[in-house]
């Protein structure tokens, strides 16, 4: 049996047995819905419905209901898209990259992180759809044989790369997530007494029985999928960044974008995970599985990625000056001194300054501080995209077309709406899905469980 150093903090607190783990996770699913959950899902679903209303109005009337204009052709729509995709990176990163690195602490959080990923990517996928002038022909982005004869898509366009990247990323993470879920659904199935629930989970569990052979395959698949998903994670946001990097717009046309966007994505993704988990662990009494250590680990990731992002910002500024290109340098001068400088400075404070607070162990291990900062970071990351997109195009090459962008109520409504949909979905997940990866947790109980560690220490 594999051991681990005694000095390592235990990942599972309290005197837990395999049974306790099952009970702790499946118990809430069997029990009646807590009142808090009911309140939260009501609020979020109301917001969701409002958002859907805004979207329908948009689709019915035209893109003109947004604040876009001849100069600023993208604003909140693509900002939200990139923001959501970014958030959607943590899950797969946690489950894939950390799995490859054999980071056990991921097991407590990967399930919900992946769920978050799936939902975030769904939210992200909404925007490229609705930002189209003619969404009803959006299927034209696929190279389909068609009655127009030889009419294919343009594989030079980064937008098309996006189509492939996002759809691949979404479906692969979905599969990855679900394959992990199957054994846990089986556990729930075997615990369920109500016939309907039993039938439902029976369906979901695909008749999983936990045979040894299946388990080997299971581990192999998880490993290989992780291996595939890791480059995928990096590729997806790199490709998203190419939407800008391959253009000729000063402030977009930047080779630093791919790494810079990826780290930004991880940064915001982990922040969102923090926000959700800190609520969930309280709401669902999972303190012994998700505790300070996990939070601290994630905060460390946030420091690192946050700093990378900070360096990227400064590099951009330096290069814009060093390049000596008139338009390039003006684009960045305009960023921090122009009409949208306020957005730039919000971004700087939230993304570069605030995560540095995590250097202090006290703050790093304080749940309230973490919660607050995680939200600050996500605000910052939203503004990062807003700054990149809007301040770059609102004043580009031809001064005669310089303009400004003012969001309309519909802009705001759609964004808030996606938040509503996202939380509705996540609450649904928290209620009916195994929020912890049972089968994985059980494997580390003996190595990293507090009680077992005590026993080890005795010897």
């Amino acid at each position, binding site marked *: *049996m*594999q051991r681990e150093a005694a000095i390592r903090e235990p990942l599972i607190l309290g005197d837990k*047995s*395999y*049974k306790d783990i*099952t009970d702790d996770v499946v118990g809430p699913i069997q029990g009646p819905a807590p009142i808090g959950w009911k309140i939260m899902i009501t609020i979020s679903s109301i917001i969701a419905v409002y958002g859907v209303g805004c979207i329908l109005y948009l689709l019915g009337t035209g893109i003109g209901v947004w604040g876009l204009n001849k100069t600023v052709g993208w604003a909140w729509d693509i900002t939200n898209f990139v923001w959501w995709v970014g958030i959607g990176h943590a899950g797969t990163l946690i489950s894939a990259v950390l799995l490859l690195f054999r980071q056990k602490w991921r097991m407590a959080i990967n399930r919900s992180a992946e769920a978050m990923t799936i939902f975030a990517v769904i939210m992200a996928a909404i925007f490229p759809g609705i930002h189209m002038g003619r969404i009803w022909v959006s299927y034209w982005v696929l190279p389909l044989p068609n009655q127009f004869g*030889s009419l*294919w*898509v*343009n*594989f*030079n366009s*980064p937008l*098309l*790369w996006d189509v*492939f*990247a996002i*759809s*691949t990323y979404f*479906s*692969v993470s979905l*599969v990855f997530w679900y*394959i992990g879920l*199957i*054994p846990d659904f*089986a*556990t729930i*199935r*075997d*615990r369920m007494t109500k016939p309907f629930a039993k039938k439902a989970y*029976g*369906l979901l*569990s*695909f*008749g*999983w*029985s*936990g*045979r*040894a*052979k*299946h*388990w*080997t*395959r*299971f*581990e192999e*698949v998880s490993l*290989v*999928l992780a291996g*595939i*998903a890791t*480059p*995928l994670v990096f*590729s997806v946001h790199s*490709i998203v960044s190419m939407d800008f990097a391959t253009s000729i717009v000063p402030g977009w046309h930047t080779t630093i974008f791919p790494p810079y966007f990826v780290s930004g994505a991880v940064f915001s993704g982990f922040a969102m995970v923090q926000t959700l988990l800190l609520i969930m662990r309280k709401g669902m009494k999972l303190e012994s599985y998700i505790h300070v250590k996990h939070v601290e680990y994630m905060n460390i990731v946030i420091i690192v990625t946050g700093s990378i992002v900070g360096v990227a910002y400064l590099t951009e500024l330096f290069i814009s000056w060093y390049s000596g290109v008139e338009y390039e340098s003006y684009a960045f001068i305009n960023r921090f001194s122009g009409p949208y400088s306020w957005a730039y400075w919000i971004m700087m404070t939230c993304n570069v300054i605030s995560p540095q607070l995590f250097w202090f162990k006290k703050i790093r291990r304080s749940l309230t501080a973490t919660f607050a900062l995680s939200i600050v970071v996500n605000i910052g990351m939203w503004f990062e995209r807003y700054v990149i997109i809007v301040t770059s195009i609102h004043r580009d090459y031809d001064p005669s077309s310089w303009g400004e962008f003012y969001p309309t109520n519909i802009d705001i409504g759609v964004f808030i709406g996606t938040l509503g949909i996202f939380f509705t979905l996540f609450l649904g997940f928290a209620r009916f899905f195994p929020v912890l990866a*049972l*089968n994985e947790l*059980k*494997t580390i109980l003996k190595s990293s469980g507090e009680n077992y560690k005590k026993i080890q220490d005795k010897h």
Partner: protein
Amino acid sequence: MNKVFHVMYDDDDTLKTAASQLVAKGIRVKEVFSPFPIHGIDPIIGVKRTRLGIAAFMYASTGTALALLGMWYFMISDWPMNIGGKPSFSLIENLPAFIPVTFEFSVLCGAHGMAITYLLRNGTLPGMPATNPDPRTTDNMFVMEITTEQNSLAAEALEAAIKETQLFELSIKDYK
């Protein structure tokens, strides 16, 4: 009259030791049901290494080939267009623009191909019945399945041998 023994243990390590004891006696363990992967059980009960990895690689390379072929056909062979003055003469010249899609498509095929194969080979598909002998095996119990049919020993001898291990519960059924 064949018999099937479902030997239940309450701990993965005890099951592992028990398994090795029995195997040492030349008893063949047919199957092990557990709530989570018991690392190191496979060699003991003789489960072969899976070849899913290789399958995945093949799927992925098919994807790569398909992607490149498709883009060559769409952009160069079937209907080349002057798009922004960029070359539409040969695959090589256009390749840089094709890399992202090629990669994504390979991953798509690799991942899904493997996932589907995995589910098929497991026989775990929507609507399949659960086949674990005891509901607790998905919770905290570990069951070893031994059949007389697979073993030369007689049922009694088997039972005796099994009883020697620190088992938690034993159920013997007649094998239809």
